């Protein structure tokens, strides 16, 4: 599957590189994007995720089918689009992956250490969390993003995320806004979305988690935020921590109202 995608990608990239017509570059780039989306193995991730979701695991040998992602035990339709939100049972705001982790621990009786042994996978071996996130997110296609915004903890999470976006930190003094704060900027050839603006946040949050064609991996939002901090030269944020979930809350709230159409396919 990956090889086929790889060949298609190479062919598309080659066609792009060989094109002498500069004026046509934009539309050809869009073609390339569409082609990569069509050849994406996202569906495969969703299918494996469904298998893992229904597979009895852990010391209690039960599946995740009774997991309550905010819409009630076992209700997946539209759940991802309504996250992050406050969960009374943990008195905390959680996003999709944090809640999946919570269900692994409570329903399946797994330890946090064991469940988080490998939160982020690679091309050879994607992680359990990535498969599960793909499946859960896919069940929200067609739903509008509508993260929690009524509970005081939800409002506090949003406010924290908004502030975190502008905190100068790490060895190199960056904030999120250092790269994502000004219109029309690039790192090398990568365009940088201004994530505090709904215009940029909506199409992005509508397609995470996502498959990345460039390194044949499936990536979650927890990974995306973790990887930004890595490049900011900070220590590593804890998986599912208030900090990461608050950044996610800020981004999702900024994108509120966008119709979820992920998991997406990115360059």
């Amino acid at each position: 599957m990956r090889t086929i995608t790889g060949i298609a990608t190479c062919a598309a990239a080659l066609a792009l590189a060989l094109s002498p017509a500069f004026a046509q570059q934009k539309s050809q780039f869009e073609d390339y994007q569409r082609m990569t989306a069509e050849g994406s193995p996202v569906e495969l991730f969703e299918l494996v995720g469904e298998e893992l979701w229904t597979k009895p695991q852990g010391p209690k040998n039960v599946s995740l089918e009774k997991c309550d992602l905010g819409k009630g035990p076992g209700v997946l339709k539209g759940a991802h689009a309504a996250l992050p939100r406050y969960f009374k049972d943990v008195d905390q705001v959680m996003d999709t992956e944090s809640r999946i982790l919570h269900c692994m621990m409570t329903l399946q009786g797994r330890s946090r250490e064991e469940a988080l042994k490998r939160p982020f996978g690679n091309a050879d071996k994607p992680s359990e969390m990535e498969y599960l996130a793909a499946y859960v997110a896919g069940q929200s296609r067609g739903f509008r993003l509508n993260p929690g915004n009524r509970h005081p903890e939800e409002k506090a999470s949003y406010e924290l995320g908004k502030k975190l976006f502008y905190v100068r930190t790490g060895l190199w003094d960056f904030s999120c806004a250092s790269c994502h704060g000004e219109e029309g900027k690039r790192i090398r050839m990568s365009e940088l979305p201004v994530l505090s603006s709904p215009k940029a946040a909506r199409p992005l949050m509508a397609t995470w988690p996502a498959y990345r064609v460039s390194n044949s991996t499936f990536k979650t939002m927890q990974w995306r935020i973790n990887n930004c901090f890595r490049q900011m030269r900070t220590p590593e944020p804890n998986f599912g921590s208030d900090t990461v979930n608050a950044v996610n809350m800020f981004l999702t709230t900024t994108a509120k109202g966008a119709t979820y159409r992920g998991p997406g396919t990115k360059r």
Partner: protein
Amino acid sequence: MMTQWKLGVALAALVVAPQVAAEPSDREVQQIMKHDFHPKGQAKMDRLEQDAVQRICTATNDRPPAALAKTLEGDQMKAIVYPSDGLMGDWKEGAKIAWSGRGMQWNEDPKKPSGGGCYNCHQISPQRTSAGTIGPSLTRFGKIRGNGVETQKYVYGKIYNAKAYSLCSHMPRFGHTGSLTEQQMKDLTAYLLDPNSPVNK
């Protein structure tokens, strides 16, 4: 101006939605972050300790009052250590350092030399097209500014500590943080200023 605007929004929010959650203070945000991170590889927790520059830039949304900025820039300037044997290194080495984006991340071997990651943000040599736009273009820098001692000092100092020149600059402090060695910063200075460097062709 900024304060008035913020005050206005806060007051309006109070009238319209009295239950609106308060922003956490900068201090609270720092406490939350310290709780939510762990050291990994070479990236230890001390990297979250904000110094005066980071604190002021965070608190003022990168727009510090002029007088305060001047004082803090002066402090940063005083801490710049210039090499005693000249500021111009080897532009060929500088070209490699400018291009390399590795270094100082938790997944990287700290024994291997860091790059400057300069091309992430700056156009530099006209031959290199894969260049970012967060910082200004430095193409023909030496050709435009010359390569006199004062210009050398400016370039070396700016690489060593960009905050000495513009307090809330988005450019990292490569010398101040020990991210680049003295020799590497000299090589980068030469890359920008040497008449034989492709930057000035």
